């Protein structure tokens, strides 16, 4: 009997697994894509994979300016944009040619309230879509908006396909090879038939160990900085960084008697040693931020760098309010339960204690934390804005009519000057004029301090020497997979 048990155990352990397939190039992800239908997908991983499978009318350049992807455009009038499809990227993976009806069908679907697409909001200015011929699409708006082309980033889907969430068909550089389980997606690069497998491995340490053992070829982001530092020291591993644009900040409740006072907010800004945090906690993997839009954004303000560490200045400001290290001002500081965010919050707590602010640190699970922030139940909190491309976010975050739930002005910042600048930017006829207003607006916000700008965290890609050709994108997308290739043995 025992022999049978041992045999069964052995068979289960060693032979009970599926046979290995031919080894594709592998990238490990922290979470699985939820839905690969671009009309519904919202999570970052899905959006990045969708970029590989489909193409959009418009993309963004390095300064986040809208540039043609599938189509060139011309402004016929401030409320009429004509898009002409280019030749490149016109073939769907089902073999059919993409035409203007596919473009119109994609956008009409998103705009139809019955479909409840999460991407409808930005497109609501579209009043009518017309297709004069197979290569031309006309978008008519109900009012002018110079930012409009930047909203046309929904990937174009073939009008006849129904189940795109699970069987995506696009005209991008990759096609779906197979999707055997939620956390294992195989894509085939259409140019050279190279297969890339996207594997979900939740635990960051295990992801790093898989890379070291050669079970995966590539990782990108979602790794604690100390793990990146460890990997950098290993043989056979290359770490590549790229400046990111995700904006980390401290937010204040401006309706609170203490955080509503600018002197307190300035004391907090001056009491934080960002250089030490970036150097020791983030291992140098971030650039100081001065505003929500990065300085090289077409509407960014390169003159803003945030507040320098000035503990004496912070003490003076607090002394003016009757506080100091002996008699500290107590503020509550909410953050998520993410270990790195919690460590950063602990360091900020220690730094501010030196200048006379005692932080009551409270960390919550994401749902509770986010619920409190939206409801205004905070004095101070830390968060980040992720994936921001167009400057209309500034209205959403800082306009006095953007209080939750209408917008994300969670600190209840009210400034007539800021409102006027936002409205002027929105009615400006050119991007240059808009940029000028947005730069003034960001300087004003930098002064008023509803947010303490902290940093933009870098994107980091780590790969084994078995592959080459991957470049890290500015917004952390996976476009580098278009050029990833196995390293030839001779060059190893």
């Amino acid at each position, binding site marked *: 009997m025992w022999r049978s*048990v*041992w045999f*069964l*155990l052995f068979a*289960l*352990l*060693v*032979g*009970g*697994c*599926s*046979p*290995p*397939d031919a080894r594709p190039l592998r990238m490990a992800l922290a*979470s*699985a894509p*939820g*839905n690969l239908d671009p009309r*519904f997908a*919202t*999570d970052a991983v899905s959006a990045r994979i969708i970029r590989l499978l489909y193409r959009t009318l418009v993309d963004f350049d390095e300064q986040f300016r809208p540039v043609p992807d599938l189509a060139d455009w011309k402004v016929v009038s401030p409320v009429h944009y004509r898009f002409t499809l280019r030749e490149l990227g016109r073939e769907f993976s089902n073999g059919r040619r993409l035409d203007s009806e596919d473009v119109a069908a994609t956008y009409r679907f998103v705009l139809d*309230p019955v*479909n*409840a697409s*999460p991407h*409808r*909001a930005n497109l609501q200015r579209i009043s009518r879509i017309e297709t004069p011929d197979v290569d031309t699409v006309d978008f008519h708006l109900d009012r002018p908006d110079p930012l409009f082309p930047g909203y046309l980033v929904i990937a174009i889907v073939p009008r006849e396909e129904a189940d795109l*969430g*699970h069987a995506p068909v696009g005209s991008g550089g990759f096609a779906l090879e197979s999707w055997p*389980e*939620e*956390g*294992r997606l195989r894509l085939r690069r259409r140019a050279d038939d190279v297969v890339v497998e996207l*594997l*979900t*491995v*939740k*635990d960051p*340490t*295990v992801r790093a*160990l*898989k890379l*070291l*053992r050669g*079970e995966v070829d590539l990782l990108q982001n979602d790794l604690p900085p100390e793990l990146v530092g460890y990997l950098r020291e290993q043989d056979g591993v290359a770490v590549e960084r790229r400046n990111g644009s995700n904006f980390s900040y401290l937010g204040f409740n401006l309706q609170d008697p203490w955080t509503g006072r600018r002197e307190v907010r300035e004391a907090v800004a001056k009491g934080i040693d960002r250089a030490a945090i970036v150097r020791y906690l983030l291992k140098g993997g971030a650039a100081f931020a001065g505003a929500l839009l990065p300085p090289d954004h077409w509407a960014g303000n390169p003159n803003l760098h945030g507040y320098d560490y000035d503990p004496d200045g912070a003490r003076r400001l607090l002394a003016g309010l009757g506080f100091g290290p002996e008699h500290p001002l107590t503020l509550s500081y909410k953050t998520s339960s993410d270990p790195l965010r919690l460590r950063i919050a602990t360091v900020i707590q220690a730094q501010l204690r030196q200048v006379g602010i005692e932080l009551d640190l409270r960390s919550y*699970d*994401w*749902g*509770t934390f*986010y*619920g409190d922030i939206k409801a205004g139940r905070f004095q101070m909190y830390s968060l980040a*804005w*992720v994936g921001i491309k167009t400057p209309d*976010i500034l209205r*959403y975050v800082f306009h006095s009519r953007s209080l939750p*739930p*209408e917008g*994300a002005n969670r600190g209840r910042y009210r400034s007539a000057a800021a409102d006027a600048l936002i409205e002027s930017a929105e009615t400006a006829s050119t991007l240059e004029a808009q940029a000028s207003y947005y730069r003034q607006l960001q300087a004003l916000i930098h002064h008023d301090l509803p947010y303490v700008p902290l940093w933009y965290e870098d994107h980091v890609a780590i790969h084994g020497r078995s592959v080459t050709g991957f470049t890290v994108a500015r917004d952390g997308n996976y476009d580098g997979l278009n050029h990833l290739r196995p390293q030839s043995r001779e060059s190893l």
Partner: protein
Amino acid sequence: MSRALIAVLIQRVFSVFLVGFGVLVLVFALLHLVPGDPVDAMLGETARPADREALRERLGLDQSLPVQFARYLGGLVRGDLGRSLYSDRAVTEMLAERLPATLELGLAALLLALSLALPLGILAALHPDGTWDRTAMGFSLLGVAVPNFWLGPVLILVFSLGLGWFPVSGRDAPGSLVLPAFTLGTAMAAILARMVRSSLLEVLGEDYIRTARAKGLSPATVVLRHGLRNALLPVITLVGLQLGALLSGAVITETVFAWPGIGSLLVEHIQRRDYPVVQGCVLLIAMGYVVANQITDLFYTLADPRLRERT
């Protein structure tokens, strides 16, 4: 089968349904009471209120909780656990896809645990307070004390990275079951070994064992046939309990080893507040517990003639 036994069976099946319903109510209520909205998680920070409402309506989350629960229950009766809020896939399909991996891991861990626990427990009971006993109980203490989230990465470091014997994680390479099964099975082996030891020690002091020895039976026959057979009854109960726990206890192990089972599915979808998937996973785990316990009880009743007579 006697009429009394059939009555017991019916009673047990009824109680399974009752517990299942209780779990359903509890999970549904708790999930909806926990702060955090799937619509927030799906739409992100910049969504407009109108779009939030539209999506809430599409997902049926705009209706009152009793209505949502009634709809869920109606679906359940038809074998429909709903669809994932994110991927729009049928939850039953997702569970069916993941269940084999969890069962495979659970079964391997159980076999590993039994094959470690029985010899260790027997050796410890045969040499009380001796070296074997101390070693076996030391192992057992270690097995209970070491958490899986630590043991898993340590095993990976040693056996995958250091020795290169097994893959780090996943389920697609030969030998990929070894480390997760060992991680999951160790704690179970430790508990079972202690139980086997104490139960066997007690039995070995009984009169009928002395009688067996007096009859001139070999020590192996006395221990294995007369001693272990009787000592295993409480162990069977414990194995039954652990069987259920393997379904839920595998959450950490599956996450560490990227094992595509029910546990990792649950973790992924809790973070997304994907109610139907979380409900489906918890219901499956709870029912696994209940059914395992009921089967154990029945088996116990069948195995012990005294209990059978009582029923």
